């Protein structure tokens, strides 16, 4: 038994993806949910499954459900950082297939920008790491970058290519928060925060809410929106504390993506748009290698020359993603929503022509947790 193609995303919405005016984290989640339901032609009364994770709320499914006045019969608050929401897609499909719920909402909300740039997190710190004052997560990613540079000769200029490409993609959206192009020189001459990473190697700090609605593929055919089918999902993980990451330059993304592609029955070469968690330039580079777009260690050369910029070979993070569009603490939800936009042909100036298959890869913590999804606007064969 497989969940391949058994569920579809039938509604999606995001709100206040740079700065909110007066909405709390749960308020952002709630309005995203109601708008995603309206997108699907459904109402709150239809919702019986709630999937969420939060840096603000210890019991986020209870917080959100109380706020919305709903009484779901199935909830899942799997918390694997920014990868959570991609993982929730598979969990929701499984719950729908098992008859545990019929209309599932996956939701996220954060006011990280309004919180004045303070990284909000309930996460405990390890007594083995806390005395040293590593800034989570940039200090850890500085160490990943230094290791990648020592092992493979990767340069700061190569990393900067990813920030430059993300900015170019974001300029094709109607709500680019930083509406001017970026150069490699600007990235590498921005202040070093945690060597070798500069300020412009880092994702934005924004507010934002997002939600998607899933139902069975069968029910999706009767709803008003064009369904986006969940063809495959995969998860993998290998550590909690950064000091125990088995290999700083190679991750379990290779396993989660292989699982998702195998379930979907498609190959990487068939994918039209790619949406990969980009907390930092270096984390995106490592993930591109692990997902199989190039060999391990060759990511630096791979991204040179605008290969992942608009007009390049790979349509990667087509709205600028975390590096240049939206990153409210956890990005995974917004990667899903951008893939849905592309597969609906609703991505405006950044639309990838005839996009039929998208790969979404969520990453949590310091490359610790991974969840991959393969989405399509075509029903499974």
């Amino acid at each position, binding site marked *: 038994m497989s969940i391949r193609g058994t569920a579809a995303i039938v509604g999606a919405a995001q709100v206040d993806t740079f700065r909110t005016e007066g909405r709390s984290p749960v308020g952002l989640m709630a309005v995203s949910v109601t708008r995603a339901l309206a997108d699907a032609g459904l109402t709150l009364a239809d919702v019986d499954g709630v999937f969420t994770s939060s840096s603000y709320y210890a019991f986020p499914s209870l917080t959100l459900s109380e706020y919305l006045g709903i009484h779901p019969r199935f909830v899942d608050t799997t918390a694997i950082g920014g990868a959570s929401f991609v993982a929730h897609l598979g969990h929701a499909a499984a719950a729908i297939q098992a008859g545990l719920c019929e209309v599932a909402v996956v939701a996220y909300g954060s006011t990280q920008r309004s919180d004045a740039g303070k990284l909000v997190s309930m996460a405990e710190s390890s007594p*083995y790491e806390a005395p040293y*004052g590593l800034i989570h997560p940039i200090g850890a990613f500085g160490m990943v970058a230094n290791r990648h540079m020592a092992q493979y000769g990767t340069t700061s200029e190569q990393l900067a290519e990813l920030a430059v490409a993300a900015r170019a993609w974001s300029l094709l959206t109607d709500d680019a928060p930083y509406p001017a192009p970026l150069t490699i020189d600007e990235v590498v001459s921005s202040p070093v925060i945690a060597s070798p990473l500069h300020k412009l190697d880092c994702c934005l700090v924004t507010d934002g809410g997002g939600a998607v609605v899933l139902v069975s593929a069968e029910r999706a055919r009767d709803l008003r929106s064009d369904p986006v089918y969940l063809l495959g999902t995969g998860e993998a993980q290998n550590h909690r504390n*950064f000091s125990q990451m088995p290999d700083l330059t190679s991750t379990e993304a290779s396993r989660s993506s292989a699982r998702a592609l195998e379930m979907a029955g498609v190959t990487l070469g068939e994918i039209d748009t790619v949406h990969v968690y980009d907390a930092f330039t270096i984390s995106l580079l490592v993930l591109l290698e692990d997902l199989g777009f190039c060999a391990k260690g060759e990511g630096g050369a791979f991204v040179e020359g605008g290969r992942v910029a608009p007009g390049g070979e790979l349509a990667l993070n087509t709205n600028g993603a975390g590096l240049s569009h939206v990153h409210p603490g956890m990005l995974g939800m917004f990667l899903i929503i951008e893939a849905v936009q592309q597969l609906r042909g609703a991505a405006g100036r950044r639309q990838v022509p005839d996009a039929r298959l998208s790969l979404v890869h969520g990453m949590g913590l310091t490359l610790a947790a991974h969840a991959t999804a393969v989405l399509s606007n075509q029903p499974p064969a």
Partner: protein
Amino acid sequence: MTGTAVPPITPRGEEARYYERLRAHEVTYQGCADCDSVIFPLRTVCPGCGSESLEDRVSSGRGSIHSFTTQHRAGHPLLADRVPYTLVLVDLDEGFRVMADLPGVDPESVAVGQSVEAWFDDIDERLTVLRFRRAGEDS
């Protein structure tokens, strides 16, 4: 003793035992009696085989820099006057990895693979913190 404050920690159980041994200027790791796994941080069961027969061992404190970063912002308000400071992941010779720092170094001189040795910073009457210096250098 530097007397430098560090971010507070609340070690419990085997974590507390690790810090008790640091008070005695020993870096503790474990070996599994059933499968020879080298274990760190300290555990109650072996992640290699599930055995509870683990023995504490004392590290030489010698190892090499697996990676590093120099932070130009403090990770905690108590560390504000130490910026910039350099953190390291050290591969100890016995086969396990720790996070620590390399106080007082010129950041430009730090590189992956350099040999380092442990030293013990008695913060106050109760807490000792593990730090490193390059082999042969004063800390």
